[in-house]
């Protein structure tokens, strides 16, 4: 999927076609029925790469059959999870690959239009994408008769205004409709009542980008990568205290320590790793002693964390985990849409306590209070944002309670070398 992203031409129609691009879509639209495509994606075991990891083929099968109402696809390109930057690469370096996946998805689900919801801050990727879309229309790949098959499909770019919650699929739909980005209560689910009230399927940029390869090379080929329960590859975005931060496409199930120490070449300046967040800021952190875990949900779950978006954030032993907690909780406090009580009030309360602890004014009882507040937020709200805010707090306290206790004991931060807030 990322093989040719180093080639500038890959972002153009000509360059993409030169690498065999758009042949998978031709194959799907001319030789396969929609049901066969859905079945193929199901057999490949492709799971959504946006963070939740839901089975893509199954999701596509939820779309109602028939033509009573127009059906829509939405491509979630609102990549806002701190530590995650893979979609930016795919949007700006391989837009045709994603568009081809979208067209195949549209064929499979009977969708007549796709809205690509691009994070507001991704101005350049959005421009690149728009150019690619324009090329597709000119070449007859999109529009009234895609690839000359008579199948109509349109793709529209919608630019967000910069709110993390708009990456949540129903918050995205609200924003797409011009409203304040706030998640919708479910049911009804988007497959019944999605964008503008129409049946809608929402998939991530990377999810769509896998699809042409599955159609071209088959489900078995895709299953040749990854684990039995988590097939395929994914793009890990490695950031933080490593020599070679960047994006690495690797099979799911690649061990975290391999990603950190071999691909990203470990911490700078001979430092030791203190902890790693495996899947973006909302996922619970793992201590250095637990990095021998395959990066797939079935294994990460055993260590009370998740793959999330695959944003691997590495922290060395100079890091103050209370400061990390302050930064993360500040982010979630700032980005909570404010709709649900637990999330609105919980994120704010937790952040205020974290700041107080970091200032040296914490109490030992605050640590249990933090866990108690987090438990009251978890699993009780309209969307998973409150969980996403609670989990890192739980993870940090689970593995680095000593850092918090040291702040309380000494009345100040014991990590002077740590990054400034």
């Amino acid at each position, binding site marked *: 999927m990322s093989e040719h992203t180093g080639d500038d031409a890959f972002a153009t129609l000509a360059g993409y076609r030169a690498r065999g691009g758009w042949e998978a879509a031709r194959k799907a639209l001319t030789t396969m029925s929609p049901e066969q495509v859905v079945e193929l994606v199901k057999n490949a075991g492709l799971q959504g790469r946006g963070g939740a990891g839901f089975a893509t083929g199954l999701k596509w099968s939820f779309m109602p059959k028939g033509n009573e109402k127009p059906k829509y696809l939405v491509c979630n390109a609102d990549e806002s999870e701190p530590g995650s930057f893979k979609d930016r690469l795919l949007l700006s370096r391989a837009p045709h690959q994603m568009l081809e996946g979208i067209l195949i998805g549209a064929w499979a689900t009977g969708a007549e239009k796709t809205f690509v919801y691009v994070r507001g801050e991704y101005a350049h990727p959005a421009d690149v994408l728009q150019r690619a879309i324009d090329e597709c229309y000119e070449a007859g790949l999109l529009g009234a008769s895609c690839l000359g098959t008579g199948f109509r499909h349109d793709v529209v770019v919608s630019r967000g205004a910069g709110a993390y919650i708009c990456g949540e699929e129903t918050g995205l739909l609200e924003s797409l409709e011009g409203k304040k980005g706030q998640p919708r209560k479910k049911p009804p689910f988007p497959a019944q009542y999605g964008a503008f009230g129409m049946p809608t399927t929402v998939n991530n940029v990377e999810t769509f980008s896998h699809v042409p390869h599955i159609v071209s090379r088959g489900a078995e080929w895709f299953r040749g990568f990854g684990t039995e329960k988590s097939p395929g590859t994914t793009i890990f975005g490695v950031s933080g205290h490593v020599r070679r931060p960047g994006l690495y496409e690797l099979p799911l199930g690649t061990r975290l320590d391999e990603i950190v120490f071999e691909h990203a070449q470990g911490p700078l300046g001979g430092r030791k790793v203190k902890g790693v967040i495996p899947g973006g800021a909302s996922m619970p952190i793992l201590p250095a002693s637990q990095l021998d875990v395959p990066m797939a949900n079935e294994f990460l779950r055993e260590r009370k964390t998740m793959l999330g978006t695959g944003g691997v954030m590495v922290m060395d032993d100079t890091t103050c985990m209370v400061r990390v907690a302050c930064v993360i909780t500040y982010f979630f406090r700032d980005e909570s849409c*404010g709709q649900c009580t*637990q999330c609105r009030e919980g994120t*704010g309360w937790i952040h205020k306590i974290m700041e107080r602890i970091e200032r040296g004014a914490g109490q030992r009882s605050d640590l249990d209070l933090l866990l108690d507040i987090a438990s*009251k937020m978890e699993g009780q709200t*309209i969307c998973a944002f409150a969980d996403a805010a609670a989990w890192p707090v739980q993870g940090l306290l689970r593995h680095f309670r000593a850092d918090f206790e040291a702040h309380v004991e000494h009345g100040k931060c014991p990590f002077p070398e740590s990054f400034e807030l």
Partner: protein
Amino acid sequence: MKITVDGVAYEVAEGRTILQALDDLGLLMNGVDVPHYCWHPKLSIDGSCRLCQVEIEGVPKLQIACNTVVAEGMAIHTRNERVRKAREGVMELLLVNHPLDCPICDKAGECKLQDYAFDYGVPHARTREPRRAAKKRVDLGPTIVFDQERCIFCRRCVRFCREVPGTGELGIFVRGDRSVLETFPGTPLDNDYSMNVADICPVGALTTKDFRFKIRVWFLEDVPGVCTGCANGCNVHLGVANNRVYRYLPRRNDAVNGTWICDEGRLSYHRIGAADRIDGHALHGADGRREQASLDAAVAAAAAALRAVIERQGPGAIGALASPHATNEDLFVLRRFLEALGSTQAGFAVPTWRADALLRKPEAAANAAGCRALGFGDAAPLLERVRGGAVAGLLVLGHDVLATAGTAALDALRGLDALVLADSHRSALEGLAQVVFATRVPAEKLGTITNHAGRVQRVVPAVEPPFEAHAEGEIVWRIAQALDLPGFAGAYDVRAISKELAQAEDAFAGRDLDALPPEGAPLHGAGVG
């Protein structure tokens, strides 16, 4: 379909959510406690306060009762330890930023945050952090004041403005715990139903300028009544203390007003204690002198004036103008009076106002339909006969004829030999009458009224007038007795009159004061209103 709630089986309608089903059964917070803030029976479901979580057997996570549709055999638990802990959690979080200013908050005593904190809150605050600072006393428009820091973001007011009047002045701006309720720039909260937002605000964030700081609510007795501002007959609670009505609050009646009332109707309670009330019976001399009189003296004077006309021109020269503000019982007595007299000279006039598609009906009086049901027709022909001299004595209930016929009515009535007025508020008509009776307003009397759709509803006395005043029916009854008309033996008894009305009129069968259910009942043949 069948569900069980805390082990008790209930039959509920398909497609309803748990809260709706409990509400349909009349059990919600009335046997089955599922506390809630954002849910309101007449607004769209929001699902954001998260307080109504319940346990459903077979479902791993707690579910919100407001958005979970009932299913056959669903077993719901509303009061086990798990549910209690969840409620406790929500309450604690809601109170993290809510000011503890109950002693100075106007909503204290009827605040849902206060109530639920008492029921489900934790006994000790665990927060050491300063509470959110926000704006105080924000003027949202002509009727509502907003105390921003008390808002718990249930969004009832936002949804109300969007969904009921359709004006959408309010929105929640910014995110997270910095969220604020505000009006859209340049759009004050100003619609015909704006004050309902104070009723549905579960805390003291939105209060009405009219009621704010007038009295602590625990001093108020809520007396069920009916707004008489227009023909809709919206059900209200009259907030009464010290023999004074301090406010109207809408009283739920799904057949009439749902849970809303219009602002103008709500403020019409000011008419009860208004300075222009006729504050006692009076005799007016030919020289224009006004003399206070007892009921007996006024009745005697009225009877004498009418008798003189009868003796001169016969009973057919006596007419009556009915009032659409009077009760069915008052009107029934008036009709019986005319029948006993042998006169057919009757009519009524009803003022109109700006109607809308929601609650406000064109006729700005509560009982125009009752007038029609009891056979009173338009006042115009009667006024013509007055002008022509065929009617020389007139008994007038209320001054509504001025609101419709204006000075033309005054000119017509100027030539009468006898004009007896029974009215609650001062008007130009008062100066023409020889005898003026002070009447009670609906908030001061017992009886029934019939709304525009033919629904008969009960009014009960909430306050006593601070001066001598009587129901129109009683005044007419006493005049009839003074004229020795048949059928008026004994003291005026409104309950007995109501029963007689129900027996005499097929449409009113079973609609007497004692038989009416709290939500009223439609006239037979009137359909459901």
